[in-house]
């Protein structure tokens, strides 16, 4: 019954602002203008529809053969035909004027307070703050078990990430949108911002959020297998809170970089490497190469029992592939996405799991060598 009620609700409900069945009003001046424009055009279409369909139904009732056996004879009227060319044209001009001013406002990215580079890749977003030394990746946080219907679905199923983008309210935030591999599209409905991320090119867009809050969106361009699993989550904080957050995160990221350097001289044990490696593999690599390392025939190569992962000679090639990616394929460069320790662990794991028996242990120092070649 539930769907039936929902359908009835949908048909009887005038598209109201609160409804989940209509465009969101959003939280920016631009998104409000877009919403108003949407409603205006919608009402104009409804009015035209009522007139046209109304006349049709009157014809169907009053001019049916049983009521009106003798059809009229007219089949041309130049005046009428000119009128219904000119009047729609005037209505269109009426629509075009607010549309033009809104569009020009939307495309004005000048004089921004904060600039953030948004890079899409299969299937995660990378955010880099230009004014501060902060950058991070943002991935889907929903567990695979929920997607496979094994666990109950959380409230924000598929619309939650491990590290959301944080922006200040009341400031003009400019986004520079680009991509690492295929075309993605960065979309937050509440900001009325949707911009394609094109590899090799940078697009600009902007927003100025009025209310603090959590705003959710998704990738809106077919970008391969996991296109449906690439959410965007933005947290808007008051400027003071934002400043605190950004200095904190800056300090944390700096500390992590220093720790990384210290780790270079340390050796991890096989158990430690394999444990950490399994975790990293399952969160980063398993989407393509599958949890059992079998890959997908013809699309993603298998790691278990084949290729560089089992060839003792190919140790440095294996590191190179994971760190720098393979251009022209879906294999990304993970050098910037993972820490050296994580990289060392995951490569060790790949070379020793699922019956792969190279016995190779990779340490952070080996990764550092490849990265600084």
């Amino acid at each position, binding site marked *: 019954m539930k*769907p*039936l009620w*929902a*359908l009835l609700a*949908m048909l009887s409900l005038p598209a109201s602002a609160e409804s*989940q*069945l209509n465009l969101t009003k959003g939280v920016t001046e631009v998104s409000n203008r*877009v919403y108003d*424009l*949407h409603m205006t*055009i919608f009402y104009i*279409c409804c009015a*035209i529809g009522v007139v*046209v*369909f109304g006349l049709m139904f009157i014809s169907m009732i009053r*001019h*049916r*053969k049983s009521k009106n*056996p003798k059809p*009229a004879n*007219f*089949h*041309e*009227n130049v005046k*009428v*035909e000119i009128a219904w060319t000119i009047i*729609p044209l005037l209505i269109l001009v009426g*629509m*075009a004027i607010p*549309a*033009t001013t809104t569009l020009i406002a*939307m*495309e004005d990215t000048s004089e921004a307070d904060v600039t953030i580079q948004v890079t899409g890749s299969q299937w995660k977003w990378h955010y880099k703050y230009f004014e501060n030394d902060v950058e991070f990746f943002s991935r889907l946080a929903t567990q695979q078990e929920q997607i*496979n*219907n094994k666990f109950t679905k959380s409230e924000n199923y*598929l*619309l939650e990430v491990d590290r959301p983008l944080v922006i200040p309210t009341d400031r003009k935030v400019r986004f520079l949108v680009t991509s690492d*591999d*295929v*075309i993605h*599209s960065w*979309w937050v409905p509440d900001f009325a911002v*949707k*911009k*394609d991320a094109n*590899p*090799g*090119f940078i697009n600009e867009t902007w927003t100025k959020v009025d209310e603090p809050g959590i705003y959710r969106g*998704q990738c809106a361009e*077919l*970008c*391969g*297998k996991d*296109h449906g*699993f690439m959410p965007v989550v933005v947290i808007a904080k008051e400027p003071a809170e934002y400043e605190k957050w950004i200095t904190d995160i800056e300090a944390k990221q700096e500390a992590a970089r220093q720790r990384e350097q210290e780790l270079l001289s340390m050796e991890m044990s096989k158990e430690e490497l394999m444990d950490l490696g399994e975790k990293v593999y399952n969160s980063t690599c398993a989407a393509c190469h599958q949890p059992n390392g079998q890959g*997908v*025939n013809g*699309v993603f190569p298998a790691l278990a029992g084949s290729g560089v992962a089992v060839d003792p000679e190919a140790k440095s090639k294996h590191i190179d592939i994971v760190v720098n990616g393979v*251009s022209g*394929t879906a294999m990304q460069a993970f050098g910037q996405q993972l820490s050296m320790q994580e990289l060392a662990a995951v490569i060790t794991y790949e070379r020793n799991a699922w019956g792969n028996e190279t016995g190779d242990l990779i340490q952070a120092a080996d990764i550092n060598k490849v990265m600084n070649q």
Partner: protein
Amino acid sequence: MSTAVEATHHDAHHDHKPSGIGRWLFTTNHKDIGSMYLLFSLTMFFVGGAMAMVIRAELFQPGLQLVDPHFFNQMTTVHGLVMIFGAVMPAFTGLANWMVPMMIGAPDMALPRMNNWSFWILPFAFMILLGSLFMEGGGPAFGWTAYAPLSTSYSSDSTALFVFSVHIMGISSIMGAINVIVTIMNMRAPGMNYMKMPLFVWTWFITAFLLIAVMPVLAGAVTMMLTDKYFGTSFFDAAGGGDPVMYQHIFWFFGHPEVYIMILPSFGIISAIIPAFTRKRLFGYSSMVYATAAIALLSFLVWAHHMFTTGMPVFAELFFMYCTMLIAVPTGVKVFNWVATMWKGSMTFETPMLFALAFVILFTIGGFSGLMLAITPVDFQYHDTYFVVAHFHYVLVTGAIFSVMAAAYYWLPKWTGHMYDSTLAKTHFWTSVISVNVLFFPMHFAGLAGMPRRIPDYATQFADVNQITSIGGFAFGLSQLIFLWVVIKCVKGGEKADAKPWEGAEGLEWTVPSPAPYHTFEKPPKVD
């Protein structure tokens, strides 16, 4: 006595058909080729429909239950390709083959041997395309639009087969279009000048020019895709100096006129059926012709409205927005003309008319959402959501496909010589028209609420809408089996049809007996 015998013998000889499989393989007869096109189209309609059922079944509830995301993408991609190139376009070509010669009083198409070729390469194109689904790595999974670089650097090896099959489909379409143009220009009955041609002939005439103009563009785009993937060129690869957005410009320069290729012949069909069942001449014949030509010309100026979010300069966005909005004017003229044709008519509601009326209303709804999509600032919100899916299914399913069904019911008596089972046909209409709205109408809301298209799984807030949509989808799919049943029943037998079974129908096709003899108009009729 002897003259009578001779006459009978002559007549029998006249309608002699080759027998056996050879009749179909080597035929140059426009009616046989038309029937084969229609049969092929119906088959593909069910193949593409089966894929849609897979999509709707997976989307019945959130989570992944039936298919994995990679296979889901293959289904959406091939569903689109099969429906566009396999179902809608061949259906119109089939109708053109059957009806254009009969409507202009010609004995056959002008280039009958090419006609045979343009049909017979099509099944091979689709065998290649559908076969690619069984390859290692699966079939094409990059959407029917095949945006680079997903379709180049990141696709499986079935891409080569995809490109090859698209080439063959394109060649078939171009040959078909050349045939239509040459036939209409050269083989009209004496006295039938251009402004006396039935509108179906006019709309196909214009469509054929569109086809010739844009199919090579598609061929070019997919060839560049092929060389990028296999021969190291960089048309769409920024690392080598190319531009992935250029692919979209080229693709949509084909793709936008393509959508009018799939709707202009519908306008012709509806312009034949509404006057017939209104018993009144079509209102504004000449403005219909001019409107069709205007739509065709404008269709070349609006391709980038599919690309508002790609990052075009604001002036380009404004130009494409204005041009796109303009298309509403000639399209509106057509709708107003149909309504004016009905006004003060004497209407009856046989099945073709029911489909035609549903066409006018539902196509107009698709037109409204199209107008909304044209407004660039709002398009940023609609783009690549289910709102777009709702829009183009309203114009393609309740538009193009409903008009093909209207045409099939209108001309079935002429093709088969039998009346179809009218009760069954009306059942087909009502189940279709109700279920198709349950299927596509809620998609508008899913899109507005923020559901992107081409996703195999979705946030729980979209669950109800998707469930309703899927139920509508299954019902619409099942309803089409009734259509199959009506057609088979009608081909096998039924009440004998008159030469002109519809009281108000007009046109040369109704002057020949039903079923239309194998050879018609060997002596051209006189038109005044």
